């Protein structure tokens, strides 16, 4: 964004953030950073504390401990918050009798942007023609679009979205992905939550994964993918002879799995097959184990199936 001075523009820092609702600990010592110029995916199962965290970042919920800062200051100290951060939250509502255009005009008045900006954001989200309809008659997807229009009205540096995919049709989701990537490419920050890895996998550059209010993974998406290397799983006549033969070709990451299969990392099925043929080891079965991020995500966030 031209004219936005300072290298801290758009950075969100969360430090030791905690929230207790009575006896329930919703968020527990969360620390992460949202960098400008990238899309940060905020992942966790339903009820893991995502919404509470986002609402604390936005000053809507008061933390029990820790703090969240946007551009180096808490939300309550931002001069004109809507010009810095825009948010699409789940429980964000609209007066059913108010039209989308008039709803946006109340926000444009509050944050001091010209009324022409209302037409611009309506156009951006594709609601120009539906703008004079009462929001009570809107579909869930249209409401999500309107919520995004509200968030964009202040031309913010930071965009916070809580499960924006809910209610959007596949076309809308694809549009949103492209939009968020474009937004981040302009040097702005995006923090987008989801309970589905697949939903942010194609959009996010950086991931923050939480489970039960605690951070279980944080870093580039690549790091998560590389945290488990692809393996070739083999059932064969002799584990020892195959392992020896593979070791001679430089493949040494070999484990015997509990079910009797051999797990070989750092190679591919063709090489394993060739080596086995040469060594005269019979192969009874071979599987190329793909890295399934979703599976990894489940393992990271696995929790006993019980109500806390």
């Amino acid at each position, binding site marked *: 964004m031209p004219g936005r001075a300072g290298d801290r523009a758009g950075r969100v820092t969360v430090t030791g953030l905690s929230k207790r609702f009575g006896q329930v600990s919703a968020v527990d010592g969360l620390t992460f950073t949202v960098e400008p110029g990238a899309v940060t995916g905020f992942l966790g199962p339903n009820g893991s504390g995502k919404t*509470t965290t986002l609402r604390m970042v936005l000053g809507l919920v008061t933390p029990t401990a820790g703090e969240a800062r946007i551009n180096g200051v808490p939300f309550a100290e931002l001069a004109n918050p809507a010009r810095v951060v825009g948010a699409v939250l789940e429980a964000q509502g609209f007066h059913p009798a108010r039209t989308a255009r008039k709803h946006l005009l109340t926000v444009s008045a509050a944050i001091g942007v010209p009324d022409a900006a209302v037409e611009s954001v309506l156009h951006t989200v594709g609601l120009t023609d539906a703008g004079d309809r009462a929001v009570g008659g809107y579909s869930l997807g249209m409401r999500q679009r309107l919520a995004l229009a509200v968030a964009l009205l202040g031309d913010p540096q930071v965009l916070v979205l809580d499960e924006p995919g809910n209610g959007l049709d596949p076309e809308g989701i694809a549009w949103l992905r492209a939009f968020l990537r474009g937004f981040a490419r302009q040097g702005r920050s995006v923090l987008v939550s989801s309970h589905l890895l697949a939903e942010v996998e194609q959009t996010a550059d950086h991931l923050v994964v939480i489970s039960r209010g605690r951070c279980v993974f944080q870093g580039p998406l690549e790091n998560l993918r590389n945290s488990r290397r692809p393996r070739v799983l083999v059932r064969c006549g002799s584990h020892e002879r195959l392992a020896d033969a593979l070791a001679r070709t430089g493949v040494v990451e070999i484990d015997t799995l509990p079910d009797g299969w051999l797990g070989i990392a750092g190679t591919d099925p063709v090489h394993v097959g060739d080596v086995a043929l040469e060594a005269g080891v019979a192969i009874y079965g071979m599987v190329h184990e793909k890295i399934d991020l979703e599976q990894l995500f489940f393992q990271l966030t696995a929790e006993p199936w019980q109500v806390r």
Partner: protein
Amino acid sequence: MVGLLHAEVRKTASTRLWWGLLIPVALLSVLINLFGGLFTAAIPDEDGRLPLLLASLAYAMGLTAIFGLVHGVVGAAAEFRHRTITTTYLTSARRWPVLVAKMSVSAAVGAFYALVTAVVGVLAGLAGEAGAAFPSFGSLLAVTLIGMLAAALWGALGAALGTAVSNQVSALVGALVYVLLGEFLLSVLLGNAESVDVQRLTAFLPVNGGEIALYDLPAQVLAGPELGPAVVEALAGVTSPPPWWGGLLVLAAWTGAVAATAWVIAERRDVT
């Protein structure tokens, strides 16, 4: 702050609430002032020259103030009911300016209701009380301005109450039960106490304060400066009423108290 005020004006103008309440306000003013109000029979009218319109106008103003209160309560609590409060709070770093803006705009709506009550009431009075003496312009203006102040305070109090309670139905029912019944029962209880000091407390309740402010001048014009306070005592159900400005101060103090409560609650509330 200017932006938040502008936003509240647009919020108010973009739903039906304000004119939906204006219709009964105007109709009631027409009815009450056309027939001289409930006071016609209560006040001795020996020569038929008493400017009763002043009293009926004051009575209509009292009812108008309730509509100002309802507008404030419903408008402020609607933000919580429809969950627009999230968006509203995202447009302001702090929450108190939102409360101040809401109270200001609700006060303006209340004052506007009172102004309409006065204009419509005087027109109805001209049509219905042609035979009676017409009040002086100065006294009509005084009752109008006092009525506007009272309705403005009730509007502001309503917006603060709606913010503090946040549940629209609870806030509205609570406010109406208190204004229409609760304070009357409280006044009877206090008024029947042994101690005169306790009886005097009746004048320090919000509804009574507003009624004292409205009835003071008409009572003085109709019953004379000596009997005036007694008429106010009878009409408002209070003991030793202060003058009209004292009544307004009582109402303003209650408005301030509710606003302070709303301020504290709003700043601490988690918007989930």
